[in-house]
């Protein structure tokens, strides 16, 4: 009994600190969610009431009407998932070669690959914009995706995973008469699924959230992604006074990721934890 009490006494301060910080960090999300359901008049009459007086969905339908969020959604989904599809092909090919084949210059090429980790996309936005423009790809979804088609980080993650596949499994596949592509598809990829999932989650999250590059490359709703579309929408809303409308639009942008994160929290957290310190 005394032991239980002492344990409780020790954990109470922990709970207090965690709750205080959680609440502080949650404030933007709470504010966003409640404001989006308030009427325009209420924002100015009672700006600090947490719960809306008469909750309304009008802001969402208005936001959807005022700006082409439908196209923004399509563009974002195509660029983030289309890019992922291409990346999965390029990184699987390269990772297999680096992990399982011996050829002259392999180690040198691998180190050259890894230098991409040091040349961050932000430091090359300007010259890459010139390249995309010379290729005539300004305001296209391909232009948004193209600079990311090769991924050193993905190649590295997958190479590590491929290297841990036992030789015997590969030999068994070869005995069954698999050629290289069937070998990769039927033997290697099923074994490294966790790495593939981790990479996919990080890649899609990164590109769904990306802002500066699509801001530069896109010019119309033809290719514009959600994050860029939202800031354009904010500039149009009169003097930023349409808070409820803007908050509803923001929910449209962040909603899918938040839902995915809530549903698969463990998976997301593991993927991000593994990405960080291992590059």
């Amino acid at each position, binding site marked *: 009994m005394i032991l239980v009490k002492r344990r409780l006494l020790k954990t109470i301060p*922990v*709970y207090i*600190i*965690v709750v205080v910080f*959680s609440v502080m*960090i*949650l*404030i*933007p*999300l709470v*504010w966003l969610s409640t404001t989006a359901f308030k009427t325009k008049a209420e924002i100015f009459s009672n700006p*600090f009431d947490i719960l809306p007086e008469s909750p309304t969905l009008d802001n969402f339908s208005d936001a959807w009407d005022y700006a082409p969020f439908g196209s923004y959604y399509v563009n974002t989904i195509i660029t983030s998932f289309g890019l992922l599809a291409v990346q999965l092909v390029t*990184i699987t*090919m*390269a990772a297999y*070669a*680096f992990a399982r*084949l*011996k*050829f002259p210059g392999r180690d040198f*090429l691998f180190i050259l*690959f*890894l*230098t991409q980790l040091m*040349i961050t996309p*932000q*430091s*090359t*936005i*300007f*010259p890459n*914009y010139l*390249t995309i423009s010379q290729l005539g790809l300004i305001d296209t979804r391909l232009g948004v995706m193209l*600079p990311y088609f*090769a991924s*050193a980080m993905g190649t590295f993650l997958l190479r590590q995973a491929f290297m841990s596949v036992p030789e015997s499994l590969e030999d068994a596949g070869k005995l069954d008469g698999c050629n290289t592509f069937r070998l990769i598809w039927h033997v290697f990829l099923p074994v490294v699924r966790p790495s593939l999932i981790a990479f996919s989650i990080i890649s899609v999250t990164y590109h769904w*959230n990306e*802002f*500066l590059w699509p801001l*530069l490359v896109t010019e119309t709703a033809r290719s514009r992604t*959600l*994050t860029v579309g939202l*800031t354009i929408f*904010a500039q149009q809303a009169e003097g930023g006074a349409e808070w409820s409308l*803007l908050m509803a*639009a*923001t929910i449209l*942008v*962040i909603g899918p990721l*938040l839902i995915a*994160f809530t549903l698969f*929290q463990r998976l*997301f*957290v593991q993927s*991000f*934890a*593994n990405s*960080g*310190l291992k*590059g």
Partner: protein
Amino acid sequence: MWGEEDLRMTRKWKTYLLGYLLVLPSFLFLIVFTYYPVIRSVWLSLFQKGARGVTRFVGLENYEYMFGSGLFRQVMWNNLVYAIGSTLPAVALGLLFAILLNRKLRLRGFFRFSLFYPTMIPIAAASMVWIFLFSQSYGLLNKILGIFGLPSNIDWLNTDPHAMIAIILVSIWKFAGYYMLLFLAGLQSIDESLYEAAVIEGANVWHKFRKITLPLLSPTTFFITLVAIINSFQSVDQIYVMTRGGPYNTTNVLLYYIYQNGFVYWDTGVASSASVVLFGILLVLTFVYYFGLQHFVHYER
């Protein structure tokens, strides 16, 4: 007739060819969008558009102009303030959160959600809410400050030290949860028996933190701090959305300066020179990061 030897040779050559073919697609994209742009930045930084749009070779004049300009020096200073101001609190909070969550807690999933969700959502979109929270008359922040009897009529995004403080606050909010996650991974690798031994020796919470957790986490802390500094040179989305580098360039940082020169003033020479500077800074930081990492990984083995 083909001998055994010939067969082995062709098989070897086939493997070579296969290897090159498999790395070729990635390699082509790396050349066009990673290596070439670096060379191109260096090259373009040596030219300047003169009168009537004629481009001429100017050597290092763009750099001389940049390093001599008060604006560029202010930009570098701002970036330093932004880097230190956002890195130290975010890493410290990340460590605190990790230590607090590294135990059996009720509602652990909820806490993890609320501390980590900012990592998941686009900072450009989150900045919309922050503009609202920072707004002078309808903003929650001024309201809260007012409740505590503090100055509460602050025009956060349009006055001098406040705009940078706002940008830094958003950055801390965004990244602290991510650093918590990286710290949690580090904490889980610490042997539990060390703490048990310390308790037997009569160590209190502070001693355990000071003598066990902190020393054993120092490589992790070092890397997370580097990640945080690197982030501060790459994360300008909230600056674009919230302040546009203002007021009077007090929140203008290097990447935003590149954006301005490249895409607002269309000054190719200065945008390229600034890109080279950013590239150099990030190269040094990431170099220390990856080579340090390799060293520590080998060391641990």
